[in-house]
């Protein structure tokens, strides 16, 4: 092998770089995400399986419909049959955060874990942080 030192240094650097996620995770235990669930309510706006992946789309629709078309009432899509209290006001802070009282221990905790930072809170103010 020619230029042994340089080539080996390059290969080692490459492997360290390519396995960076392993090093960054090293020595940290995998903790399951624990979220603070609402105390009294049992169900979310839509079934929880749908909410997990789709809540941002729901919010997007709410925002557009409420702000642009002034349609502020929402009836659950997936719960329609056989449920009574499945009507909501389309509101980020007044609806979502009415049940999910602690934004930090619910929305934020999950978002930190998933690496998302919704920009909504640049304008909207979560209840417990009211000035």
């Amino acid at each position, binding site marked *: 092998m020619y230029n042994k030192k340089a080539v080996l240094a390059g290969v080692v650097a490459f492997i360290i770089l390519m396995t960076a996620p392993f090093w960054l995770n090293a020595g940290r235990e*995998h903790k399951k995400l624990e979220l603070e669930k609402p105390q009294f309510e049992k169900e979310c706006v839509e079934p929880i399986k749908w909410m997990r992946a789709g809540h941002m789309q729901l919010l997007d629709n709410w925002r557009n419909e409420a702000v642009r078309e002034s349609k502020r009432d929402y009836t659950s899509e997936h719960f329609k049959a056989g449920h009574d209290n499945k009507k909501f006001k389309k509101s980020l802070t007044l609806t979502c955060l009415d049940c999910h009282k602690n934004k930090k221990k619910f929305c934020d905790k999950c978002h930190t874990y998933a690496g998302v930072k919704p920009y909504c809170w640049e304008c909207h103010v979560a209840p417990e942080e009211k000035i």
Partner: protein
Amino acid sequence: MSMLVSLIAVFGLVAVSYMMELVGLHTVLGIIIPYTAVLVFLGGFTYRIIDWARSPVPFKIPTTCGQQESLSWIKHNKLESPSTTGQVMARMFLEVFFFRSLFRNTKTDATEGPRLLYTSDKFLWLGGIVFHWTFLVIVLRHFRLFVEPVPGFVHLLESVDGFIQLTLPTFYMTDMVIVLVVTYLFIRRVVIPQVKYISLAADFFPLLLILAIALTGILMRYILKVNIVGVKELVHGLFALSPVIPDNLGSTAYIFYIHLFLVSSLLVYFPFSKLMHMGGVFMSPTRNLPNDSRKHRHINPWNDPNIKPHSYEAYEDDFRKVMKSVGLPLEKDVDGEEEGEK
């Protein structure tokens, strides 16, 4: 033909992984194949590099297009004709990060005459550089799934990439750009006759595979949504060396497994394909040698050390008598009469 083969191969990969998901081979798809792919990628890549490093470089062959280092009053073009390791590294840096040599790309047209016309063509450079940078940004953004706690640079990339704040989940510009640019790179190989002529399945397949990876990712993010928390458990588990298969990915989990399977295929394919140019650029003697042959003698490693150099002087010593007898001119005459000595 080669196009069709590549297309069928990519669809085959999608179909295979989809079927494996259907029959519930989640451990294979989510743990065994990804780990195997990473090992093949690292091992294969290292092997290829070592293999190249074992090939001798008989000549000093850096490509240059500028004045080499010479007399002090002749201006040396340090980037185009690097003569020190530092200058070689500077040129290599610009090559790797900005594709400097591709910037000089030309296209050839046969005009009436008949006359060949060479004109500057920056589109391949533009397509190439945009493709590689968006690919990098997308992979770095994926670190939010790989690492816990999420590293800070991810948020920076997310906010820049999602700058236009359209749709929720926030639309990333790189998602659109990578699809457009890979499509362009593909179409380029189809519509330009000369390029089509030299394109093989090995050229179409990686493009289509990367396109399929990007499309499944985009589909997963915006349409067939999966539970990212479940995905992170799986992916972070892989990178924390404590793999788990969570059962809460949602009803569209198959799209995640297809995405992961295609990425694994790319990793396995990498070391055995032209994608090795990633390591190859550093191993190219035309790029990694300094142009200093006037200062340092390049020893051909093929030379047998037992064969000593034989100078003209020694040659004349060996054959002086014979040479003189046929009247050949000599540097040094036997009789001591110096003839033409310098």
